[in-house]
């Protein structure tokens, strides 16, 4: 049995023991008092006196033990759930990224396991054990009364909770959309306030909010009514059972002692059972959360891992994209529709085009975050064809940190007529080892600057980190804020420009054979964007680089510019060539030049 299992058993035992002690306390007290009224010798009461004192003391101690063990189990279970969820999320999911809101709800859902244990399972076990003990005691004293008790307990502990659960499940299917509707109306009112005010529609939107609120209130009052009825029926079940037990005992001629013990243990045995109806209501929410988590875990990854993954040989790589077609979901127009591209070692290629043209999809395909519908991406260890006219390869040896690959490369590298490796035969992790860099929406973790940078190169020394920071022109900022200052939500805020520079430093530190840069100047003001692009073009000189951008300034420096529109390459060439011919590139170039102040 796992540690968690043992703790869970311990918590259940302690919880049941606490309830049993409570039952024992009232039972022995009732026996003590009614027996004493018969005025037996004092010795006859001594066991009961000891019992009363013992039960009174141990009840609290058991309860304490239950709470400790229960919380320990809950924390363990939550940690396991989170780890499992995380492991399920590690392989990239479908590209339409989950929103921040959905992510936090998913994280909230992991609390459901905690609730299931502490508020569901543990009390249910305690209630079951207590009920069984009371019924067993009754069987010894007066079987007929025990049957009455059993019936009452079944009503309060089984019928009521399952009824409440069934009704709540049905109702929550209506409450959830009503809540979502209210949230949507409120969001409209807040986010669309300018549009509403300008068109004189604010009051109408406010009225829509209140209508949604009124509809939700009706449903919530209905749920409150269900709970109230359940509470009422619980009280009736408890009280009438006690009345029934006493009636049966009195009519069957049981003595005062037996009647009192039966009546009072019956009364107390309902105490852990009555909350079960409310717990059942809560558990419907818990089970919905658990179902959502199961769905997340069951979502297949967007990219299938090859059964026998190929390694990508070390050394400079040529990337050859041929007729690539990527469709995000069947039935929708393809995001990339037959794109071809060659990136030889040391060359820099820029991808430009309007938003939604497929630029980021191309990078996602290279990083093996999406599976292409057709077409190939091949990686050649050296420039295909003759290697004499290739641009100078970067001096830095790639063998460091990949011993296996260097061997691999030696075995094949002699002929230089390699067909290359099809990216489909490469594991996603391996693909991202060779092709990665500055990705869309870089993230600042709630950690020190050092850790935020180091994640891109865990083995990097201080020297290399400082170098990456220097090349990303981040050193003044780092010196001012410090390497170990916490960043992120609670820590120091990071401006858009600093964030992009941090992402650039990560990419440079990681130093992949093929560097990908996705919109490095996204969301920056013009001045910052210009400075960053200039530094970036400086830092990537001589590196095999694929740069996705919507700004053209500085692209004179890159070797080739590919213009994508609607998933198709519409223009390609150098800056000087493209500004000579009419088309998207020249339009954009002129408009950028005109609007800019400089």
């Amino acid at each position, binding site marked *: 049995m796992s540690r968690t299992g043992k703790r869970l058993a311990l918590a259940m035992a302690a919880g049941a023991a606490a309830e049993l002690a409570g039952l024992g306390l009232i039972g022995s007290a009732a026996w003590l008092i009614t027996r004493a*009224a018969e005025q037996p010798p004092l010795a006859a009461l001594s066991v009961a006196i000891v019992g009363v004192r013992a039960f009174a003391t141990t009840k609290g101690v058991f309860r304490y033990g239950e709470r400790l063990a229960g919380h320990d189990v809950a924390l363990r279970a939550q940690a396991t759930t989170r780890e499992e969820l*995380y492991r399920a999320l590690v392989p990239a999911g479908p590209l339409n990224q989950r929103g921040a809101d959905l992510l936090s709800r998913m994280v909230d859902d992991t609390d459901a396991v905690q609730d299931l244990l502490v508020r569901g399972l543990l009390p249910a076990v305690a209630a079951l054990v207590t009920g069984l003990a009371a019924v067993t005691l009754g069987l010894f004293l007066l079987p007929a009364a025990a049957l009455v008790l059993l019936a009452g307990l079944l009503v309060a502990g089984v019928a009521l909770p399952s009824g409440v659960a069934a009704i709540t499940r049905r109702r929550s299917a209506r409450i959830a959309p009503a809540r979502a509707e209210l949230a949507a109306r409120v969001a409209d009112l*807040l986010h669309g*306030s300018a549009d509403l005010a300008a068109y004189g529609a604010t009051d109408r939107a406010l009225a829509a909010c209140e209508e949604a609120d009124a509809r939700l*209130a009706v449903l919530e009052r209905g749920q409150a009514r269900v709970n109230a009825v359940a509470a009422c029926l619980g009280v009736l079940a408890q009280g009438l059972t006690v009345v029934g037990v006493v009636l049966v005992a009195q009519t069957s001629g049981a003595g005062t002692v037996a009647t009192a013990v039966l009546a009072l243990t019956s009364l107390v045995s309902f105490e852990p059972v009555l909350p079960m109806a409310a717990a059942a209501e809560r558990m419907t929410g818990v089970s919905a959360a658990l179902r959502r988590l199961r769905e997340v875990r069951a979502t297949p990854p967007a990219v299938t891992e090859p059964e026998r993954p190929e390694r990508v040989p070390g050394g400079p790589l040529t990337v050859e994209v041929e007729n690539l077609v990527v469709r995000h979901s069947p039935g929708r127009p393809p995001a990339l529709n037959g794109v071809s591209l060659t990136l030889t070692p040391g060359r820099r290629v820029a991808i430009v085009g309007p938003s939604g043209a497929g630029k980021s999809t191309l990078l996602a395909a290279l990083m093996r975050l999406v599976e292409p519908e057709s077409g190939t991406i091949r990686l050649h260890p050296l420039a295909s064809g003759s290697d004499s006219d290739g641009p100078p390869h970067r001096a830095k040896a790639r063998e460091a940190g990949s011993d296996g690959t260097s061997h691999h490369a030696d075995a094949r590298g002699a002929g230089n007529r390699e067909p290359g490796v099809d990216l489909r035969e490469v594991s996603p992790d391996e693909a991202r080892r060779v092709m990665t860099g500055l*990705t869309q929406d870089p993230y600042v973790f709630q950690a020190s600057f050092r850790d935020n940078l180091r994640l891109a190169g865990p083995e990097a020394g201080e020297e290399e980190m400082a170098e990456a920071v220097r090349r990303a022109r981040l050193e003044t900022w780092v010196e001012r804020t410090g390497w170990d200052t916490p960043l992120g939500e609670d820590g120091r805020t990071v401006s858009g420009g600093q964030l992009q520079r941090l992402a650039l430093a990560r990419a440079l530190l990681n130093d992949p054979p093929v560097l990908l840069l996705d919109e490095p100047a996204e969301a920056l003001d013009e001045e910052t964007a210009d400075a960053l692009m200039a530094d970036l073009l400086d830092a990537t000189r001589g590196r095999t680089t694929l740069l996705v951008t919507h700004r053209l300034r500085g692209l004179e420096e890159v070797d080739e510019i590919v213009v994508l*529109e609607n998933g198709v390459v519409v223009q390609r060439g150098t800056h000087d060539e493209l500004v000579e011919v009419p088309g998207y590139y020249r339009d*954009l170039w002129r408009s950028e030049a*005109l609007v800019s102040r*400089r």
Partner: protein
Amino acid sequence: MHKDLLRLARSERAVRRHLALCLAAAVLAGLLVLVQAELLAGVLSGRFAVAALLPLALVVGARGVLGLVQGMAAGRTTTAVKSVLRHRLLSRLRDLGPARPTSHRSGELVTLTGRGLDALDPYLNGYLPSVAVAGVVPIAVLVRLLTADLASAVIVLVTLPLIPVFGALVGMHTKAVTERQWRALSRLGGHFLDVVRGLPTLRAFGRARYQADVIRRVADEHRAATMRTLRVAFLSSLVLELAASLSLALVAVPIGLRLLGGTLDLSTALLVLLLAPEAYLPLRNMGTRFHAAMEGVAAADQAFAVLDAEGEPAPRPAAHGNASSVSPDGPERRAPEIRLENVTVRYPGRREAALEDVSLVIAPGERVALVGESGAGKSTLLHLLLGFLTPEHGRVLVDGAHLAAGAWRPAFVPQRPHLFAVSVADNIRLGSPGATPEEVRAAARAAHADGFVAELPEGYDTVLGERGANLSAGQRQRVALARAFCLPGADALLLDEPTARLDGRSEAAIVAATRDLAEGRTAVIVAHRPAMIDLADRVIRIADGRIVSDRRIPRNPPDDRDLSTSGTSSGRDLPQAGAISGRPDSETSPDRRIAYTGTAPDRPTGGTPGAGRDMSDADAPDISDISPDGFDDSVSTAQGGESR
């Protein structure tokens, strides 16, 4: 009770009545337990006949009914309180207007107004009744015990205060530690969320799998630390539990001995045994509900903080008459004159003015392009004209009338229009809810939006937003333009051109639609692109909240389609017109100018460049047809200053 909530409960009749009913039912049910104990003790001791079970059953029934009443009244109380708070929060936000301070973070407000207020439920329907019961029932029990058996009453009287006293002592001792621990717990949740959010970054650098072990390790370390504190923190509940059960033992054993001695009758003894736990129970119930209730208090604090926050209500923007669904063919409108007199606008908490001493007269029917860097004050000027902002100094006059009073009906196209989670048609008829489907379609056609709307799954009835279809940025912009077209009575156009690049088809469509929309209206356009600037007959450059140049371009020949050529010539011939109030733009570098003129001769003779692009409107002006000198004032001012 939370003092703001109390004030709310007092002032709202529905809340007051339901809350009072809920509390009364709870207290009454608590008191009925005393009657129940009395009857049960009587029957068990043989003092009452078996027939007394009938009144006992009736008491049980009454308790059940009271429970029902309490639950339903509680439901009504919580929904009423939440509705009132929601209403007040939303009204408050409406009064603050679109230019409300950014400190009210929208996301948080949406959560607070929605799910956030649900935290009030356990406070209102659980904690408050338990407090009421705890205030009445223990005292009633004590009074009954005093009349029944003095000795037992004394034991209860002495031990009862131990519960709050010990609870407070342990609580004080562990409060800081516990709070720190709960904060750490939420930080742990934060860490997990952090890692999940940053997963794409981790994946990019091959660190995703490694992080799974970190998650495990952090959680384990955290659990060990939490359990160490909980061992102390749970002592308070141990003390509560022990005080309650030990005092029962303390009461029961002496009673047994006195019964043995014959100094007490069984009926009283059983009553004491049944009543004694009822003195402690309400206090324990209150304790267990306390924690959940505190979340409700936090939610209430947050809500009242928003309600009480400083902030001057914005002027209500002049509302459009709902009857503005005049037929699109014959709108009766007359373009107004807009006059700004020494206007200064300052956002709260800012030292620098967003607009400083701006004076400006825009003639009826004039089309003004506002240009300048982001943050210069262009959008502020637009918001001022919309009435979202009140100037600190100066005044804004429309046709000589004060803005707030005037019958000012501008059509507004914001930079990032918000599309509502309703149908496309309802989005378009935002300003004129009475518009017929034909009018909506006509507006969409005018905005070049009918093409893509027709391709949506349910056409104009397609619901947009999170759960509906998603539109591209360019399509959203065209829906916003359709909104403006659907307001035929609007006599002015205020438009904020998007800075983000849109797809080529949308860009051309937006320029063409804007030109049509500006026809016959006074138009103020925040422009970023040459094609858009070229629509204007006056270009105003704003920098740091001031007008730095203001240049009129003579009306183009009647046919706008020849705009390309006329734009070029007018720009070349009339450079000095730009230097009305602007300073020469010294930053303009000469080589930049060469770049412009260098590319100008290559200009194609017409048609649509970019073979792959499908222009929805062949007449759409194309930026490559336009010489930059024609509309960029900074260039022409430099030209005027240097070469002439």
